[in-house]
């Protein structure tokens, strides 16, 4: 490769990196988030023990079956709420379970799971539209519960 060509490629690389960093910094601006949380019960039984729990939609059932081993999924609770920029909001999903979401820099959020009022764990990760986060566990080895967290909108 000639010296001239090498210098050209160097300059091209520098321009690309600068553009990338500029556009990356635009992504770090503040945002208000509209978040949906579902508390779901997974089981191989035909019905949930609580008759008030409806099966989740067929689309969601198909999606969950691709990921988890249970056959049937029931919606225990479904809440949608707004998390203002750089602030926190707690979502109560059941008597024993809450999720607190804090909007952070860039696409990141902090998700805290509370069980019976105590913090169980804290997860910090980007939350992007189209991707869902699940926090869950087995219940007595046969059934399961999960909290499905999705970003509905941001502005």
């Amino acid at each position, binding site marked *: 490769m000639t010296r001239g060509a090498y210098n050209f490629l160097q300059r091209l690389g520098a321009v690309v990196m600068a553009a990338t960093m500029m556009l990356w910094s635009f992504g770090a601006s503040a945002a208000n988030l509209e978040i949906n949380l579902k508390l779901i019960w997974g089981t191989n039984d035909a019905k949930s023990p609580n008759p008030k729990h409806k099966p989740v939609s067929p689309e969601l059932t198909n999606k969950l079956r691709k990921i988890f081993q249970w056959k049937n999924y029931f919606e225990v609770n479904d809440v949608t709420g707004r998390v203002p920029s750089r602030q926190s909001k707690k979502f109560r999903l059941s008597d024993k379970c809450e999720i607190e979401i804090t909007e952070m820099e860039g696409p990141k959020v902090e998700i805290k799971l509370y069980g019976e009022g105590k913090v*169980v764990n804290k997860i910090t990760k980007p939350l992007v539209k*189209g*991707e869902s986060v699940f926090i869950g566990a087995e219940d007595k080895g046969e059934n399961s519960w999960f909290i499905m967290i999705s970003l509905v909108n941001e502005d």
Partner: protein
Amino acid sequence: MNMEAQLKMQAYLDGELGPSEAAEVQRLLEQDAQARQQFEELRAVRSLLRDNEPEYRLPESREFYWSKISQAIARAEAQSAPGREDPAPAWALLLRRWLAPVSAMAMVFLLALAGLKMLSPNHDYAMMEIENYSEDLMVSTFRHPTEKVVVFWLTPKTYDVAAKPAEEIEQDELMYQ
């Protein structure tokens, strides 16, 4: 009833006959009591078997069974591992000399593309952190590549390890490309 007729009757039972042969067997069954009796026996055995398949369980522990399989896989992979590659022929070496600058430029181009891809709002290069505050539970993570789902699964601790402090999960550990 000859053997051919009996086999045709069986094929009728098993849904293997075309319409005209099936009609032929139906006529036979209407007319011949012995044929009906034999057909009934075949039907009964077929039902009996289908409804009562014997169940057999693996007579050794699953862990032991899996350990033998994983060892066999390791042995098979060790046997099929490629040997040292033969040195490239002269024409390949010559081609390489000319390809090197082209591939350097291609790499710059790809890096530029990757940079552009970083600008997509759905692309996710930041690291994840998990802080587990429970003494009884541990957290496992899994990412499903096509369903766009990240799972954090809580399981009871079965071994004596203190709850981990803040744990940084490298994105590369979860991206299985």
